[in-house]
């Protein structure tokens, strides 16, 4: 019987094979990382300022529902304003809709129904700092004293150019984490921020479309 002889066979390029595989792996990972950075989905759905709060990412439950209702109300208030002032007599002062007017239009979050109760029964009031008909400075709707734990307060401001606002009848919605808040003296941004108000910004369908399909 012949004795068994063992030979160790090594590949010709064995000295470099490991290094080549390592380099190729690093190159593949680097290319993929670059691709993901450029083309991949970002989880940062929106960028906002310190004095703003995201309706999508931060507000929850009832406060999110109230904000979304206010957001749609902003679309309707100018129409209601036209309705209620349509048949004004000559010289009669124009006015913005009252909380009672909103009851007639079944308009949440002002309309007092079961959903209003479920969302905390916020107490709404209207304030016009300079009640001079068409020349009023701004119109404020405050919702406060919600009944749900941790619920904040809301302020809808309609600003007017002649009172120093940038855009006429521009509507801005503010949120304050305090459950009870007194009516602010004016709707100007700086004063509101100093008193703990933060502008609520939506994550809109337009932003989502941009995220999915690119601008």
């Amino acid at each position, binding site marked *: 019987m012949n004795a068994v002889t063992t030979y160790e066979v090594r590949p010709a390029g064995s000295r470099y094979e490991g290094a080549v595989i390592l380099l190729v792996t690093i190159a593949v990972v680097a290319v993929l990382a670059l691709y993901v950075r450029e083309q991949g989905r970002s989880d940062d*759905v929106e960028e906002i300022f310190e004095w703003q709060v995201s309706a999508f990412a931060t507000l929850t439950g*009832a406060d999110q*529902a109230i904000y979304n209702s206010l957001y*749609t109300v902003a679309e309707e208030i100018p129409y209601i304003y036209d309705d209620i002032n349509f048949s004004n007599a000559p010289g009669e002062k124009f006015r913005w809709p009252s909380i009672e007017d909103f009851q007639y239009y*079944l308009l949440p979050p002002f309309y007092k129904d079961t*959903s209003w109760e479920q969302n905390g029964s916020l107490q709404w009031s209207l304030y016009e700092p300079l009640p001079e008909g068409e020349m009023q400075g701004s119109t404020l709707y405050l919702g406060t004293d919600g009944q749900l734990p941790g619920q904040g307060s809301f302020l809808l401001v309609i600003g007017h150019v002649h009172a120093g606002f940038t855009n006429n009848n521009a509507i801005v919605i503010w949120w304050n984490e305090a459950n009870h808040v007194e009516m602010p003296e004016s709707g100007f941004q700086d004063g509101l921020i100093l008193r703990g108000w933060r502008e609520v910004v939506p994550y809109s*369908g337009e932003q989502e479309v941009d995220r999915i399909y690119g601008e």
Partner: protein
Amino acid sequence: MRLSDLIQRPLLGLVTIVLAFAAGAADAAGLKIGITLHPYYSFVANIVGDRAEIVPLIDANANPHGYAPQPNDMIRMTTMDVLIVNGIGHDAWAFEILDAAGVADTLQLIYANDGVSLIPIAGDPSGEKIVNPHTFISTTAAIQQVYTIARQLGERDPDNATYFRNNARRYALEIRRLRSEFDEKVVGVNLSNFRCATMHSGYDYILQELGLQVTAVIEPRHGVEPSARQLADTIDRIEAADVNVLFAEKYFASRLSDTIREATGVNMYSISHISSGEYTAEKFVSEMRENLGTLARAITDTADASR
């Protein structure tokens, strides 16, 4: 002048006149408006009345979830002046058809959700904030879309802009009255024991509007059934939170709903996704009325059982 000229010139003139008349008639007939989903048919029909034509992109009984584009869709798309899309994940197939039909650069789109403040999918076990695209199963978010569509159609058809806007307002009030009808059914009912889960995320907008929070969602993403482990965790969450109502899809049945009902003893109710059947102007209001009626019944049943 040759005899043929004597015949051809008046004939050409006649053809020109007929084509001009036809073009004028087409203008008078208004826009040809494409839509991707059933609710958008109802929205547009109530906005434009008889002053435009509505062209559904896909067949009435096609399931828009995971829809595979068909050749006819491309033909329909080439006839449209404008297409109204959800655009945030519920009709991604429309963009495939746009590319396939070669009109991606020419067909104007109206993104119905442009002005909608979106919410995340509720009760997602991952805790991630994923955009919920079911904005049309709602009242407030639906009204916002009606206004967006009316405004953008008015920009494309200025002669009818006021007509569209007035119709949008009338329709918005009709949608809002659905909430009043719902309220009449539940006013005074004790909701403190009402805790619900949903089979998928389609009902988050309407439930949130009504102040009804969702404890758990079984299938947060359409068509992606949970694993055995995820399902077991969800059942644990339902039991831990003492959930007593499960809302399932009316038209797209899932065997999982029966499994969960058997495992937890919850009462199950069916909600319409408004995504199937004939395209009609009344469909959205009709099915939302039915949905709100079902929600009211779930609430009163729960209150009765708690007495």
